[in-house]
């Protein structure tokens, strides 16, 4: 028993390193634990899958940070790839963080949109617009006067896709991807209008927005990495979301093991009177 107690003294080292090993192994050797699809994610998929290709553009807002990227990027990539596969047009902006423009460019580079779509006709990248909630409110009422140029210096009034956009009525849906905690800006300022509203946010934010989903203000959502993985499965664009699911499962299991181990060790300590 004394050897166990000796080992406990190095607990921080062991607990951390076992976590790292579990994460690496689960990524390198996927177990393929099945992922069930939840209703909110299915709602997003069904909407985009039935939206006619000649619809008004989607408004995608990249409101996540580089740090939040692992959790939100899978859902964003899957949604954009799905939109491209269906021929849906989209406008990309960002109001939550000034990293939006760089994240938007990496989205364009990695999604293959530049190979299949024509810029200005099928998609437009506005990038970051400062102002927070004021901007979100202003975009709904008077998009054209808030946004004058895109991220590449083109006037939006010169681009075929954006020249006729005046307000919320000129979009077929709004989908913010948020880890910066600004999703409520969109909920407050866009759900009062009659526009389909979807979103992606961190798993920790789900309890906050589920109330809006139940009331019908939010039509569907993808919660965290799991939501992204579900959307990847639905669309068939499998990527980091699905790959990370085994890692998430095993680290959650490891948390349980750590909890049990910690309490066993405490029991032993107490028994030995240490």
């Amino acid at each position, binding site marked *: 028993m004394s050897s166990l107690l000796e080992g406990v003294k190095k607990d921080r080292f062991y607990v*951390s390193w076992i976590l790292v090993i579990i994460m690496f192994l689960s990524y390198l050797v996927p177990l393929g634990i099945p992922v069930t699809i939840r209703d909110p994610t299915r709602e997003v998929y069904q909407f985009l899958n039935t939206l006619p290709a000649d619809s008004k553009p989607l408004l995608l807002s990249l409101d996540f940070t580089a740090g939040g990227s692992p959790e939100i990027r899978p859902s964003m990539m899957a949604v954009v790839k799905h939109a491209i596969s269906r021929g849906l047009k989209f406008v990309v902006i960002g109001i939550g963080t000034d990293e939006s423009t760089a994240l938007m460019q990496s989205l364009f580079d990695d999604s293959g949109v530049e190979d299949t779509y024509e810029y200005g006709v099928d998609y437009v990248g506005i990038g970051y617009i400062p102002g927070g909630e004021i901007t979100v409110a202003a975009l709904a009422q008077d998009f054209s006067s808030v946004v004058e140029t895109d991220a590449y210096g083109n006037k939006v009034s010169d681009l075929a896709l954006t020249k006729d956009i005046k307000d919320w009525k000129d979009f077929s849906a709004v989908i913010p991807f948020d880890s910066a905690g600004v999703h409520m800006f969109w909920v407050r300022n866009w759900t009062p209008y009659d526009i389909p509203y979807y979103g992606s946010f961190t798993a920790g934010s789900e309890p906050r927005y589920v109330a809006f989903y139940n009331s019908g203000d939010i039509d569907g959502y993808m919660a965290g990495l799991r939501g992204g993985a579900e959307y990847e499965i639905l669309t068939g664009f499998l990527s980091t979301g699905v790959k990370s699911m085994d890692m998430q499962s095993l680290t959650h299991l490891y948390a349980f093991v750590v909890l049990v181990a910690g309490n066993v060790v405490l029991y032993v300590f107490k028994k030995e009177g240490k």
Partner: protein
Amino acid sequence: MSRQTTKVFLPVLLVAFAGGVILAEYFFAPQILSTLGSELKKLGVLIFSMSMIVGLVGISINSYKKISRRAPGEWYLHVWLLALLYVWVIVGLIYTPTHDFYQWLFANFITALYQAMLALPAMSLFVAIYRSYKVKFELNTILLTASFLLVLFAGAPLGEAIWTGFTPIRSWIINVPTASAERGLIITMALGVIGLSLRTIFGIERTWLGILRVPTATEEEGEGE
């Protein structure tokens, strides 16, 4: 103009006008209100953009002061801060964030560092679970442990693979008790925001001016002497 007029009355008047117009625009239809509201929102976007420049100037002045007086233990950190800050500003101005070089810097510096920084608490979290989470047979601990296990197993696919019952339990907890508690919180916060906004518009709430109490005319005169 007295100090009270410039430091209190004018700012309060400005906020009352802006807040009043935005509030009225939401409830009433006249075109003039809509136009005014729209212009004020655009002005808000502009002011927000300007605040970034103010921030840049502020942080530069603060760091310069610390560097010039060789603040012990931190002056070199401010040198590093300013160097990185201005490298990003210059690269951003020259290349813009959509350029390949900016993208390379962004992916290899900001993204990598940011994600590494956010991953560190995960290690501490596991160690904290190991060292601090002691299960006791008390109602609070039992409830906490049950929630912890439910989140662990129902949130990840493994839970559903072990027992399908996790999903409906999680769904009920999220949709019934959690959603109702959230609704209560959202409504309470909204009422609080309405109250605070009205107090600000009517000039009752003035702490945003940096003053807790407006000096009386007598106090002002006394200060002048």
